[in-house]
């Protein structure tokens, strides 16, 4: 690391309709510095990255990178690349239908003298990169045929094909990786650093930050908190600054003794999971943890009748049921908060009122005619009860902040008063305040004797809320922890279970 500054972030503000995602972030990054960026989900880390990379235009402020003594600003992703800025985003973003070799050479495919694609050269070049990252895979393999962890590594290794790299951003690169792959990544980061390339490293795993980063910038609710040298801080310090209060508090909800069995799933098999069995009892929270691609969401989609199952049985309150479509599941008393509220949870361009009621219009209508008075009353009631912050129930849901949108989804489910509630990533894109309110809501639900399943990829949350936990890996139930065992587990144990490798053929 030198003292030469590479990147200047000056007072970045980013407004979205109804929410201020960034509230004036300023910091500078030196050449060859590895800077960690930490903050809770919704703290604005990803938005900041997008502003740096020119994918989003900040409402105010500027980001400048020093290119051979001249300060330049990237207006879009292509310019960013030209300026030597590269980002490895949270989701695997490579062309899934193409081979590894083609992905490495996208946009600069070598040609033979005849002007045809020079496959030999492409494979040879690719082999070098693959070996460098110890991946042991055929360069001609198509991305989609590879396990997710390997896809993630290909995405990371793809950065190394670029020339004149100045800055590399890693957004949660290890979420999908096993331990040995993490070490390979760390070696690569060290190599970048030695070449004088700066790195921005985002991770929820604070141990990694302690190991690989020079300095750390803490963000909270879209605001800049502070930047410290890693040698000056410890994990507890970071957590207290990220959350603004000790971590344990936010998850400390009142649990109760579980009651009767509400849901039993036996030997459920589907396209992306195999042999899943579990029970859900009244008044408990059953956690489902797994890395991205482990099949946890797919299991729940199948239970809700969205995706087809190939075999297995589902019982609700001891009675066998056939859940062929979401409507049947809905009528049998299941409420499902989906992973992505924007694509399938909410009618985004409709009002809060319609969204609150749309899961239960049959309950407030007779002969197909809606009781408008009840419709309005219910929307007003839930707006008050769960604190949906909106100027009116006629507001378009798209204009609400993530947390309030999520509350509308919950209001929608509660209008039906289902006994079984499945929450898939209930706090994604939700700010800390709203997060706490959602947890309080879940607390009141289990006190009423509802059974709640929570899927979370955020370990502290999954661990902090669950009474019992199922851990999934590559479509299998890797581990089950009853309440006694779960109490003795720490994050590492769970993560180890979630990283179990299965023979792909078995699925």
């Amino acid at each position, binding site marked *: 690391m030198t003292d030469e500054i590479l990147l200047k972030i000056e007072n970045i503000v980013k407004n*979205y*309709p*109804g*929410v*201020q995602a960034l509230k004036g972030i300023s910091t500078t990054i030196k050449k060859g510095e590895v800077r960690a960026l930490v903050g809770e989900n919704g703290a604005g880390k990803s938005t900041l990255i997008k502003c740096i990379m020119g994918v989003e235009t900040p409402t105010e402020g500027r980001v400048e990178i020093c290119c051979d003594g001249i300060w330049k600003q990237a207006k879009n992703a292509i310019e960013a690349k030209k300026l030597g800025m590269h980002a490895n985003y949270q989701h695997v973003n490579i062309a899934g239908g193409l081979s590894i070799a083609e992905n490495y050479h996208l946009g600069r495919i070598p040609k033979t003298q005849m002007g045809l694609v020079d496959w030999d050269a492409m494979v040879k070049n690719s082999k070098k990169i693959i070996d460098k990252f110890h991946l042991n895979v055929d360069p001609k393999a198509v991305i989609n045929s590879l396990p997710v962890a390997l896809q993630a590594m290909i995405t990371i290794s793809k950065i190394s094909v670029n020339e004149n790299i100045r800055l590399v951003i890693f957004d949660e690169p290890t979420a999908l990786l096993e331990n040995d792959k993490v070490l390979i990544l760390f070696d690569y980061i060290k190599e970048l650093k030695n070449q004088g390339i700066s790195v921005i490293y985002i991770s929820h795993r604070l141990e990694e930050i302690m190991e690989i980063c020079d300095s750390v910038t803490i963000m909270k609710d879209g605001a800049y908190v502070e930047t410290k040298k890693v040698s000056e801080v410890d994990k507890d310090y970071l957590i207290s600054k990220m959350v603004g209060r000790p971590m344990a508090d936010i998850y400390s909800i009142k649990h109760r003794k579980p009651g009767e069995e509400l849901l039993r799933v036996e030997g459920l098999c589907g396209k992306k999971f195999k042999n899943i069995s579990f029970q859900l009892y009244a008044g408990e929270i059953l956690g489902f943890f797994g890395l991205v691609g482990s099949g946890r969401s797919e299991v729940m989609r199948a239970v*809700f009748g*969205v995706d087809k199952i190939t075999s297995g049985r589902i019982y609700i309150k001891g009675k066998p049921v056939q859940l062929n*479509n*979401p*409507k049947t599941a*809905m*009528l049998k008393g299941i409420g*499902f908060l*989906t992973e992505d509220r924007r*694509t*399938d*949870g*909410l*009618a*985004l*361009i*409709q009002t809060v009122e*319609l969204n609150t*009621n*749309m*899961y239960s*219009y*049959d309950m407030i*209508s007779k002969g*197909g*005619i*809606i009781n*408008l008075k009840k419709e309005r009353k219910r929307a007003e009631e839930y707006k*008050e*009860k*769960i*604190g949906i*912050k*909106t*100027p*009116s129930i006629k*507001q*378009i849901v*798209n*204009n*609400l*902040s993530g*947390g*309030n949108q999520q509350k509308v989804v919950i209001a*929608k489910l*509660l209008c039906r008063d289902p006994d079984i509630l499945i929450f898939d990533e209930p706090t994604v894109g939700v*700010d800390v*305040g*709203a997060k*706490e*309110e959602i947890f*309080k*809501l879940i607390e*009141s639900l289990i006190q009423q004797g509802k059974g709640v399943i929570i899927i979370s990829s955020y370990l502290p949350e999954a661990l902090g809320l669950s009474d019992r936990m199922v851990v999934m890996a590559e479509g299998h139930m890797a581990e089950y922890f009853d309440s006694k065992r779960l109490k003795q587990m720490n994050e590492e144990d769970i993560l180890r279970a979630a990283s179990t490798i299965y023979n792909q053929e078995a699925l």
Partner: protein
Amino acid sequence: MMRKLVAISRPEKENQVHGLKNILMRTEVSMILVIALLFMLATFGTKNFFTAYNLTNILKQCAIIGVISIAQTCIIITGGIDISCGAIVGISTLMVAMGQAKWGMGILPSMIIAVTVAVICGMFNAMLIHEFNVPAFVATLGSQTILRGLIKVISNGGTISGLKTEFSSFASSNLLFLPKLAIVWFVIAVLVFFLLKYFVFGRNLFVLGSGKEVARLNGISIRKTMYMAFAFAGLLYGIAGVMLAARINSAIPTAGEGYETNAIAASVLGGASLSGGTGSVFGTALGTVLIILIDNVGTQFGIHSFVMQVITGGVIVVAIVADQLKKRKAG
């Protein structure tokens, strides 16, 4: 029950309509202003605009396009589009004329046949779109071509006349100074308004238009809603076809040609978004009036009909661009 939770999150940005500027921004208000302007211009600028004959004529034209546009709006709300509407109107017109002139049917049976055929056509569209996953645009373009061909086959390419006098006199008679055709339009508009506002079916159209997955995961049967929407649209096209047959007192093979453009334009002018999820009966009715009025006023001022087509097209493009700009501003 749940206790009220402490409010921690930040307050939402106000997005409600405030002030004169924003009132003018509302689609309906701006359209009423444009319609009023055109009306004044034509009344004081030309001799023959503000006459009972011309005004009645405008209303009759509005009535038929108006009914079709309302049906089109329902389809657009679901996120679909119906290119075949003009052709379905055409086949309905043909059926009612054939029924009365060739098959010796009474007025009511001939009307029932016409409307039934139109409903079946709508269901056929729904089948193509839902069962075979054909995009609505392509599916209805295909059925439009089939229907236009069928019309020519059945009619032998000729005009069918000889409709019953009691039938065609309905189109030329008035009730309380208003053409009966226009009254049919008003009644249908009110009914569909209530359908969209008070019925679960109506709400489902809006949810479906906001996203298919949203609808499915909220327990709405996409199949049922699609079939019902297209069958209902077919029903309205059928009625429009009967109205058209009465008005021209015959069935010509080209009946209803080009109506799809007017119907889609009226819906979009009235605030329906082609990406689905929005649209209103009132807006569409205003859109219909605007389109017919532009054409009529142009003719009154002696603008050549070729030029009028350019102007009408221009108005539609401006409306769509304005809609997009408004959306971009709203984010």
